[in-house]
């Protein structure tokens, strides 16, 4: 049998692993803190109130989209239509207001119509058994078409001031847009972790057959997931309209990729059943920080795209590494 050496020493790597496994978001926190420290050193302007204010506003819209996307991706799906629904909502809410509808009613109708679009996607996925990628790709194109048609391709201006003022407003010095995104995230965390619907989303993501055999109503839950994503996209579109003070049919183009990137950087798996809203929020914040930092440092914005591309792949690589070992 020979000598057995005592196994008391624990390598520091293993300890790090253990901490990472217990708090999977710890790496992300470190990344964002490191980014902030570096930027603070490189640019004295970074930690000023004005820049932080900007950063918060920039994060808000993507963050709201990403909360919906988190639900979709955890359920094992994908939603490519979120950017187009931002566009439709932007056009719709502006047109209604320009035509004299009260602001609240315009917002409500816009949200409802977007939910209807989400429901159509849900029907295509559950009832017609079209894979989510294709169903939402179709909606992405169709919804963008609707936005362009309604606006005849033109930007809608002359939007009532009280509506546009919301995006400029602050509460205790914090931009209202950011507060809305935080509220959305908190409600999202509650739904995901504390409700039946939230657990069903995880169960569906882990296996549709298991979920069905456990009596989960697949129809209602599938509809719910895509309606929720559409509703949040619509909210993001409405806020964006307020921020830009105009209804732009092409707004939100490419936002689906930002949302997916935030969710994936935040630790979710496209295979489903994994991910968290807190992770997604940090993911969104990292992306916004990079954008902001590159601007501040005056680096060619094309570099930023490259950096974000590398970041997405790197984030997933680190995550795989953690899981496999």
């Amino acid at each position: 049998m020979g000598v057995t050496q005592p196994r008391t020493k624990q390598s520091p790597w293993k300890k790090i692993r253990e901490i990472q496994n217990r708090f999977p978001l710890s790496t992300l926190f470190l990344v964002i803190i490191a980014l902030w420290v570096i930027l603070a050193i490189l640019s004295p302007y970074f930690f000023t109130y004005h820049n932080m204010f900007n950063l918060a506003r920039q994060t808000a819209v993507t963050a709201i989209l990403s909360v919906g996307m988190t639900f979709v991706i955890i359920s094992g799906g994908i939603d490519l239509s979120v950017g187009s629904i931002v566009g439709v909502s932007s056009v719709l809410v502006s047109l209604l207001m320009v035509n004299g509808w009260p602001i609240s009613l315009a917002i409500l109708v816009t949200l409802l119509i977007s939910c209807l679009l989400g429901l159509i996607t849900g029907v295509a996925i559950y009832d017609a058994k079209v894979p989510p990628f294709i169903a939402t790709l179709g909606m992405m194109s169709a919804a963008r078409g609707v936005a362009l048609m309604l606006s005849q391709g033109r930007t809608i201006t002359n939007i009532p001031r009280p509506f546009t003022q919301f995006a400029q407003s602050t509460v205790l010095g914090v931009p209202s847009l950011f507060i809305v995104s935080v509220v959305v995230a908190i409600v999202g965390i509650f739904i995901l972790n504390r409700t039946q619907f939230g657990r069903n989303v995880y169960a569906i993501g882990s296996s549709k057959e298991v979920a069905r055999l456990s009596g989960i109503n697949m129809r209602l839950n599938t509809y719910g997931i895509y309606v929720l994503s559409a509703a949040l996209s619509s909210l993001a579109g409405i806020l964006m309209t307020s921020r830009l003070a105009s209804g732009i049919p092409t707004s939100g183009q490419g936002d689906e990729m930002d949302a997916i990137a935030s969710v994936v950087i935040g630790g979710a798996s496209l295979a489903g059943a994994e991910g968290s809203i807190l992770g997604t929020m940090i993911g969104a914040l990292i992306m916004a920080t990079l954008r902001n930092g590159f601007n501040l440092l005056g680096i060619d914005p094309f570099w930023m795209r490259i950096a974000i591309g590398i970041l997405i792949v790197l984030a997933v690589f680190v995550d795989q590494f953690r899981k496999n070992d």
Partner: protein
Amino acid sequence: MKRDNEYAVVMENINKTFPGVKALDSVTFRLKKGEIHALLGENGAGKSTLIKILMGVYQKDRDSGKILLDGQEVHINSPIKAEQLGLSAVYQNIMLARHLSVAENIFLGQQPKKNGVIDWKKMYEDAEKVLEEVSLDVDPRALVKHLTPVQQEMVAIAKALARRAKVLILDEPTAQLSEEETVQLHKIMRGLKKSGISIIYISHRLDEIFEVCDVATILRDGQYIDTKPVSELTEAEIIRMMVGRSIDDLYYKEEVKIGKEILRVKNLNRYPVVKNASFSLREGEILGIFGLVGSGRTELVRCIFGADVPDSGEIEIEGRPVRVLSPNAAIEHGIGLIPEDRQQQGLALPLTLADNCNLISGRDTSKLGIRRVREEQEIARKNVNELRIRTPGISQRVKFLSGGNQQKVVISKWLNVDAKVLIFDEPTVGIDVGAKTEIYKIMAELLKQGKGIIFISSYLPELLGVCDRIMVVAEGKITGTLGREEATQEKLLALASNL
């Protein structure tokens, strides 16, 4: 050197340490040429680790002894090396490319080539030769996904033979096979043995060991226990060596008063897999369903549970006719299904034990869709205690639990919703002897609470051991129902092959 040459494989004093666990502690294993050698042990005994070391998936510890193949010391540092040395393994979940043809699978990675492109004609011809060796009569052009499980198993073996394997490792090959197909597999194993191939055979079904193996090596908790000719062993002895204590009552059964009828199925049809099925189940009764794989037994219970929708027929629960068009409806009416594939159908593997236990009952404990997390945790803890689920805690992800414990989690889901009729579809496949007995005990406990159980199995001894009645299904039809006293293996097999 010479003496060793009667052995195809010698693994001497093998140690393997994983962080925190000694998986193998000085284990020795000797496989003679042309021998079928059973490797036995409970889950976690070290069988798979030993095989994975032989196959180059894991590396043995440095302080281990040697591995000799045909008397030569070898260092197997990768699965590719193992294959080159003539070692080949067919694992429980057959790893074939389902969308490729039989021939393509057999020669995957070593297709015969002519001028740099695949020589299809030669490949099909060669494939036919290899298929003949395993007496499998299928078209080498057929896609693997269209084959039955046993045919797929044979293709996997043929693939090993095409690689000129001298040593074949079969890891639980019969888990997915019916009785008849198992017999067929055994026949082929004997043929391979005659042609000089040595086989390492892993199975949880002890009857098979006596049927087909020459020698058995038993491991327990990573330690070598004994190697003996099978003819000198009894089932009880093997179990004692595997478990470390004797299990006097492997098939646990208590006398329970059989009460009123709780389920009646009338003329249930789902073309073409279920034909005119009628039967009933009483409180405290355990009704076995025996049938070959593909006989329609699983489809029958899936219709009762609403997982598939029947074309016609009636279902009555406690005398009331009910319509069960979805699992959801079945749950409302108190019918539960522990499905045959716990990994693919029973468990949300990435989720925690607590989440899985409450997956169904959550809707009863929650208010307005908001979960009562405290209550759920209490329920999960109760499940862990009552079913003796071995887990570090209720927040453990179920994918990390062993097969037996996973199965207990699936059962827990149904205990928490108080289902009246519980359908167990092959609940003991791939779990070790100790855990099997515990499952039978759980069934006995449920019967005492007045529930009725339908128990599907391909393994006759367990059906004969625990059931009150056994119903036989063949080609979608119920071919007979035998009471506990009159049922024998022969009668049931005759009914199952519909003679």
